[in-house]
Each structure stands twice: as structure tokens, then as C-alpha cells.
């Protein structure tokens, strides 16, 4: 690949980064909302609600995302009555279809992450809060939730990275994000290795920034005495061990 082609390819790919980031940025909050609703419903006292939420989580975790995207995009559009309904305004747009399919799927996975976080809250802490006279709502807000979030964050950061990578599936329904643009560039230039290595590098860089930022947030949420160093060097690791031993002793 000559310099001119390389610059052309790099320019086109740089433009597509925003589409990828936009997909992830819209999908993740929506997924969080779906997950929150599912988690709430799964802990509800009504059996029907629990059943519906469990079925949702099971179904969308079990079916490949690509299949979900195809069903929503190509499958649903087969029905003429649907194309005549107002829903079509949303489903006509490939970007919207990608966001809906991905966020529903991310919601199912995130619901499991939330379940794990809630299960990791020690029963004793909740009982202690109740014994101190905190209302159930306050107990949830001040005790259960902070602990659950802290426990769930490592798993959720995984979900964020997976979601960012799965945006690449949107190119199968004509959304020109990174992978879609790369495929187009590949058929123009035939420089398969070069183009896809560049794409891989871009994904790597985006995810590196994300993973580092998430580690900072994790660290910030961790009580000071439990904090581990960001960069595990040999010398510092031992000092931290001593520090945490001391912290544990003083507790």
C-alpha cells in the first residue's frame, strides 16, 4: 500500500470511529435501563413479572446478536402492516435498528451482571442497616446499591468492551461504522491485511482508553484501605500488602 492510499484509508477510518462510538454511546445507557428494569422485575413479588423478566434475559442471552439484528432489520420489515405503522419511522432506519437490537441484548447481559452484584452484598450488612432503623428504600440506596455497584463494576466493564466490539455487527445492516468502512475500503484497495490491521489497532486503542478509565472509576469507588496500585510493580505491591495488613489490623 502506497502512502497516498494509506492516508486515504486512515482518513476514511477516522471518520468511521465516530459512528462506532455513537453506536456504543447510545446503546450502553439504553442497555442499562433495560437491565435495571429486568433486575427490578426479577426481584418483584409478582410471579408473572419475574417470569417475563427471566424469559427476556434467557432469550436474549441465548440468541446470537447477529441473528437478533437480522430478525429485527430484515425479518420484521416483511410485514406490510408494520411498514404502515408509526413504528416504521424507527425501524426504517438502520442505525436505530442496530441500537435497539444491541441495547436489548446488552440489557439482558447487564441484568445478569446486576444480579451477580446484588448477590454479592453480604446479608449481614443489610440486616445491620435495618437494625439501625433505616427504611428498606434507604437501606437499598445507602448500603445495598453502593456495595453491589462496586462488586458488579469489573463484570460491567467487560460488558462495555463487548458492546463496543459488537457494534461491528451493525455493518451487516448497512450502518457504516469502522468495520463496514473497512470492508468497503478492502474491496476498493484489496489491501486486506493493511486495512484490517489498522482497524484492529483502532479498536485496541479505543478499548485501552475505556478499560483504563473504568479501572480508575473502580479504584475511586473502592474504599481507600482496599485500594490496589493501578500499575502493579513489584516494589509497590509489597508496600500495599503491608498497608492493607495494617488497615485490616486497625479495623
Amino acid at each position: 500500500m502506497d502512502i497516498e492510499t494509506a492516508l486515504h484509508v486512515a482518513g476514511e477510518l477516522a471518520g468511521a470511529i465516530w459512528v462506532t462510538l455513537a453506536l456504543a454511546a447510545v446503546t450502553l445507557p439504553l442497555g442499562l435501563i433495560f437491565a435495571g428494569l429486568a433486575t427490578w422485575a426479577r426481584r418483584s413479588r409478582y410471579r408473572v413479572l419475574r417470569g417475563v423478566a427471566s424469559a427476556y434475559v434467557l432469550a436474549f442471552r441465548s440468541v446470537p446478536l447477529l441473528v437478533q439484528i437480522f430478525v429485527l432489520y430484515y425479518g420484521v420489515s416483511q410485514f406490510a402492516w408494520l411498514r404502515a405503522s408509526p413504528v416504521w419511522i424507527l425501524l426504517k432506519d438502520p442505525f436505530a435498528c442496530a441500537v435497539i437490537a444491541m441495547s436489548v441484548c446488552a440489557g439482558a447481559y447487564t441484568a445478569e451482571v446486576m444480579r451477580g452484584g446484588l448477590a454479592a452484598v453480604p446479608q449481614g450488612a443489610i440486616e445491620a442497616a435495618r437494625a439501625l432503623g433505616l427504611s428498606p428504600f434507604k437501606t437499598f440506596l445507602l448500603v445495598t446499591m453502593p456495595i453491589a455497584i462496586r462488586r458488579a463494576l469489573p463484570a460491567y466493564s467487560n460488558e462495555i468492551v463487548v458492546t463496543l466490539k459488537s457494534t461491528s455487527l451493525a455493518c451487516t445492516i448497512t450502518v457504516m461504522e469502522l468495520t463496514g468502512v473497512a470492508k468497503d475500503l478492502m474491496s476498493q484497495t484489496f489491501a486486506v491485511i493493511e486495512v484490517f490491521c489498522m482497524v484492529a489497532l483502532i479498536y485496541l486503542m479505543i478499548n485501552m482508553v475505556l478499560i483504563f478509565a473504568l479501572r480508575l472509576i473502580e479504584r475511586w469507588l473502592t474504599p481507600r484501605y482496599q485500594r490496589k496500585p493501578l500499575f502493579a510493580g513489584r516494589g509497590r505491591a509489597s508496600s500495599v500488602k503491608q498497608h492493607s495488613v495494617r488497615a485490616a489490623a486497625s479495623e
Partner: protein
Amino acid sequence: MQKTIRSLLSTLVLSVVLSGPGVAQDQAEVRIGTDGGYLPWTSTTPSGELTGFEIDLAKQVCDRMKRSCRFTAQPWEGQIPALEQGKYDILVGGIAITPERQKRLAFTQSYANLPINFAAAKASGLNGKANWQDLKSALAGKTIGVQSGTQSQKFVDNELKGEVTVRLYDNQDSLNLDLLAGRVDAAVAGRSPWIALTRTPQGEPIEILSPNIDFEQFNYLGVGVGGLMRKDAEDLRKAWDTALCDLKASGELKSISEKWFGFDVSTKPDTKLCGV
């Protein structure tokens, strides 16, 4: 013990001799890669079998070359890398002969040529334009669907860039679905898939728009369709071209074309290769 070693050695020698380059070339299957989703060029039946104009043609060529052929369906976008890696010996499936492709790869002589056409819903009012300029101005601001990596995409990039919204599809079937669903206002491809689509019951609301986009008019579109192979496969290319010359001269290519397209898409024998 010695006997066993000797017999082992002789088997080894024999197998090396048998698998030597000369023998392997004659006996090895010709591995043909094709899209399998691009009627009537190449298509997959519901039972998973490959059929189509180029499948029939390739079978005839293989018969004439006296070699066994094996067909494998793979989406178009991955075919060229697979060919370059040696997974296939030749690719067929409505592949246009272009200078860019000729830089890296070799083509057989062309055996078919078809114009590019736009297609749209009958209700769109886009049909009946006298020339390309009229159609072009009618398309301004519309959403156009096209399969990526095709000559049609190149045409859209060259003639309509910035004036329309372009949606790229992996295959013609997906493009058909979105044209039928109304997600794209018009779609562009070689004439043949539109003929196939408008013949089906669900393709009834679709029509082929005039005018035809001829390759002579836009010469960057190439000289027609050929089989694509690696430059090092010179022997196979010669054998394939000779067989094509035969099929063209005997009129068999024409009859295969009429079977699949309903008319003759075949091109004339290459003067240099066929000696006519």
C-alpha cells in the same frame, strides 16, 4: 524388521512420486469459489445445491478440460483474499473484468456482458427517463442501495457521490429485501438480478428503470464478466480459455445464457485467444 522398513520406505517413495507436482496438477480438483446468492449468475437452492448460469458454464468448462471441479459458496467480500491464499483456483459469479483487479490477479476472457440498471418501486415515478442525466437529477437526495465491491458501487461512487445517500449491502438478497421494504428509494445492480427479482411474485411492485447504463458509455466499468484467478495459475487459465472458445463457437454458451437470462448475454470469442 528390515522388511517392514523397506516396505515403509517404498510406500514413502511411491507416495512422494505420486504426489509430485506434475501428477498433482492433472489430477487435483479445480476448486471453484462462487457467491451463491446472485441470481441468475450463481444461486443456492433451498436444499443447498449451487445452480446458475456460471455453475452450468463452469461444469461445461470442466468437462472440456477433463478435470473434476468442486464448487464452494462463499460471500463475495471474502473471495479475493481466499483466492490469493490459494483456497480456490478460480472465482466465478458475475465478476467484472477491471484494470484494478487485473493489476493483482488474472482473468479468463470475458464470457458475458450486461448493462447496469437502477430498480425502484413502480409507485416511485422514477421510471421512463430518456437518458442518464434525467435519471440522475430525479435521483438527487434519494437513498440508493448497492452491493459493495461491485461495478455498480463504482458507478454510484463516480456519478452520484454527494448527491444521494448510499447504503452498502453485503449481498444482492439483502439489497432486494430493503428495496421491497422501502428502506431504499432505488437500488442499482447489473441488469440480471432485477430481471430475476421482477419475475418473482414478491418482486411485483418493483420495476427496472430506464435507461440502461452501458459499459461502452462508462468505460471505467470494464469489458464484461470473466473468471478470476491468480496470476501464477497460467496453465489453468489457458485450459479454461480454450474451453470457453469452444463453448462460444459451438453456441453452447448462448444456450446456457438463454436458459438463465432469457436472452443472450454472451460475448464474442476473444480474437487473440480463440484465433478467429
